[in-house]
């Protein structure tokens, strides 16, 4: 089942549960709070689209709670409680709200939180920059992370040049779909590529594929054309 989308985005599957997931190790890193902001952002955005991985993270949070219960306590300073009690008068019980207000017709929103707040817009207003024929990208501003994060738009039917990775790469499909040697990826699916993976993603023939990509090191193009392009690709 699909629904019609505006702005050239053909369709979104209605509440499809993804089939390509994050590993438990990465979900544990996220729950423990030990991954960088860019990695945490792509993981959390997959979580918005994936009830299965959310259940794993909830279990990991519960492990964190149990570890907190059993840690040997360290005494706090003598006046610590009084200092906190004195400050309670100043704080109103403000429940923090999401900075993004869902616009009218919010069923048309393509980009879930937390990515939507980082973009400060939904997909239709993204400023794309061409990389090569059939491939555009837009940087996602994350000031504190050494990892590169960006949106990628692969034209319908376009093949991305064959490449490997010096580091790891995580790719989350937001609309459309692509295939590589690991299978078919559509909205909500996430692909994690280790350095040894060489792949050549091809976008589905019927619509553009838009992905959120986080890379922790530059890509290395390995095909004959790719090698020529290497100096120009700033992935």
């Amino acid at each position, binding site marked *: 089942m699909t629904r019609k989308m505006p702005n050239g985005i053909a369709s979104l599957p209605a*509440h*499809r*549960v993804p089939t390509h997931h994050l590993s438990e*190790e*990465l979900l*544990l*890193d996220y729950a*423990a*709070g*030990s991954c960088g*902001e860019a990695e945490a952002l792509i*993981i*959390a*955005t997959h*979580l*918005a*689209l*994936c*009830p299965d991985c959310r*259940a*794993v993270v*909830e*279990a990991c949070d*519960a*492990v*964190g*709670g*149990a*570890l*907190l*219960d*059993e*840690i*040997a*306590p*360290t*005494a*706090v*300073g003598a006046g*610590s*409680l009084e*200092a*906190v*009690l004195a400050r*309670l008068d100043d*704080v109103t*019980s403000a*429940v923090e709200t*999401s900075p993004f207000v*869902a616009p009218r017709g*919010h*069923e048309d*929103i*393509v*980009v*879930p*939180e*937390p990515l939507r707040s980082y973009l400060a817009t939904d997909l239709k207003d993204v400023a794309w920059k061409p990389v090569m024929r059939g491939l555009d990208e837009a940087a996602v501003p994350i000031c*504190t992370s050494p990892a590169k994060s960006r949106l990628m738009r692969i034209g319908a039917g376009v093949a991305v040049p064959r490449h490997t990775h010096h580091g790891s790469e995580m790719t989350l499909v937001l609309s459309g779909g692509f295939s590589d040697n690991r299978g078919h990826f559509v909205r*909500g699916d996430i692909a994690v590529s280790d350095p040894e993976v060489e792949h050549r993603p091809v976008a589905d023939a019927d619509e553009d594929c838009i992905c959120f990509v986080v890379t922790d090191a530059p890509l290395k193009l390995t095909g004959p054309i790719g090698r020529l392009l290497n100096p120009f690709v700033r992935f």
Partner: protein
Amino acid sequence: MMLMPFNGRMTEQDQSVPTTNGSEPPLTDLLTAVATSRDRTAFSALFAYFAPRIKAYLLRTGCEAGAAEEIAQEVMITVWRRAETFDASQASASTWVFTIARNKRIDAFRRNRRPEYDPDDPALVPAESISADNRIEVDQAAKRLRAAMNDLPPEQRELLRMAYFDDQPHSAIAEASNLPLGTVKSRIRLALTKLRKGLKEEEE
């Protein structure tokens, strides 16, 4: 940051639902009292239980003592402010406080906000079956989880402590502990499988 071997600071015996001491009400009730009636006595009891644990957690993750004290206070103020958002049918009090302490630590250490999904986001894909979990089940699940943790082989337990307390992703833990990455991954998977099984299982 240096990877510290497990130094025996944590105890293995406590399997009961934690209370501030034997005679006081469970943490969940204290938190509910703060949420519904801004009860300062309940808050003080929560502080007595959690503040020293949060401080220990922050010290273990590499925080310096003064900062650990300060951030622990910030966490407790957030507990006061956000008590209404605690949902006893979703998580235990300790789990909820852990997530606040973890997020404050990330704010303070990395100077970034922690990206999290918004459960009310219209773009969120909901779970297919809404689980009928209630508060009693959450309490029992927490108890079973502690039992399952105590049953873990020492090397899996140690790896979990490193993962949660050493502020390093599993790949860095592998490097720092001279274990092959595959071994670290399989130990984490084994541990999580056992713990998740423990969380789900009905009372024996």
